[in-house]
């Protein structure tokens, strides 16, 4: 397999169990997964199906009970705590439903923070944060605290922060779960632009609107994958019919 075709992220027999004996729950049950570079993958399933646990395992926020996990050609399930923390800072980005921004820091400072934590200079952090806020359309809001921003704007700051250290992959857990319809469209537009620039995404969602715009949609039930669909289809020009204009 040459470098370009190699998956960015690979999981083999990934499993996560909680409790023991009779109370044993297998939240993630022997999952195999390959995510290609530049792919946007959406994972859907009912509450409690294990999709959030899965994304935490994939992103190194939690450790699997069993199985192998490969990121960018490197096995990561057996890394030390220290190496795993380093990987979370530099190789992966996270976007959460509740944004998880630091309330006392401005938008700019929130995006600078991970760059500083990765050991870069303040000057470099400022430059990077400036670029990213520009990219997410919030350059004019750089000096605002999160409390002065709308939900959609906060999530865009959180997305900028996730991209701060040029991660090889971005994980998003219900990124539009707290957003209204218009703000959802803002986030869809942003993901689409980043996807166009080659960013790889794994998104766990209840939102069919995000799922429909992904390259690939996985359905999950009881800790396992029950469907894996490649979503394709260009424009048919039949939009009018969806609104009842052709009858």
């Amino acid at each position, binding site marked *: 397999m040459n470098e370009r075709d190699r998956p960015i992220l690979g999981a083999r027999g990934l499993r996560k169990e909680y409790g023991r004996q009779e109370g044993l729950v297998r939240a993630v049950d022997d999952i195999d997964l390959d995510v290609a570079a530049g792919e946007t993958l959406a994972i859907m399933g*009912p509450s409690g199906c294990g999709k959030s646990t899965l994304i935490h395992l994939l992103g190194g926020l939690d450790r699997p009970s069993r199985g192998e996990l490969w990121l960018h050609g490197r096995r990561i399930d057996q890394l030390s705590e220290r190496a795993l923390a380093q990987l979370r800072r530099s190789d992966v980005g996270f976007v959460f439903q509740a944004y998880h921004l630091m309330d006392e820091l401005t938008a700019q400072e929130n995006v600078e923070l991970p760059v500083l934590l990765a050991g870069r200079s303040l000057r470099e952090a400022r430059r990077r944060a400036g670029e990213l806020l520009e990219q997410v359309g919030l350059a004019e809001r750089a000096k605002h605290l999160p409390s002065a921003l709308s939900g959609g704007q906060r999530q865009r700051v959180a997305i900028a922060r996730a991209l701060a250290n040029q991660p090889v992959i971005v994980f998003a857990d219900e990124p539009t779960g707290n957003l209204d*319809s*218009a703000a959802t*469209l803002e986030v*869809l*537009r942003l993901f*689409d632009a980043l996807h166009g620039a080659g960013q790889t995404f794994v998104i766990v969602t209840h*939102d*069919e*609107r995000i*799922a*429909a*715009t992904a390259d690939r*949609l996985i359905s999950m039930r009881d800790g396992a994958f029950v*469907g894996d*669909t490649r*979503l394709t*289809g260009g*424009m*048919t*020009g*039949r*939009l*009018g*019919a*969806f*609104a*009842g*204009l*052709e009858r």
Partner: protein
Amino acid sequence: MQQEVVLAMLAKEPSQGSQLRARLDRALGPLGEAMNDGHVYVQLGRLERAGLVAREGPAASADHPGRKVYALTAAGHGRVAEWLSEVSWPKPDLAEFHLKLIAAAAAGLADPIDIVDLQRRELLRRLREVERAAMAEPDRSDAGLLLEGIALRLQADLRWLEACEQNWTDRRSNR
């Protein structure tokens, strides 16, 4: 499209068919492509025969129907006012799909879950197309608002399909 739509678009000011068409295109954006070019003229002809619109100004030649200026008659104004106050809402035909699943399962002709899956793929494909079009619209465009409505309806339909799948899966495992 209902003739009342053409009638109401004319209420703003007396207009030529091409001006009406341009107004509809602005309101519908990419969805306007579904409309046949002659549609507005056919509707205007019908409305004229029904006495709801009348031609204004100098009689244009019959070869250039596009240059005729139409205006609402008093009856036309009345019909527009009536239409605006009507509560009409498109009815999604959920009963047909529901009965399809029941009939397929009862006769053992097809697996309801396969039917649901096929339907879901089609709706996801449509939702993808609608979202692509919505992303391309500028903020606060008229067409963007219509696309948002279509997206939200498709989302509701997909959620119902999810419930259908869950329900039919449970029935099968409890049999």
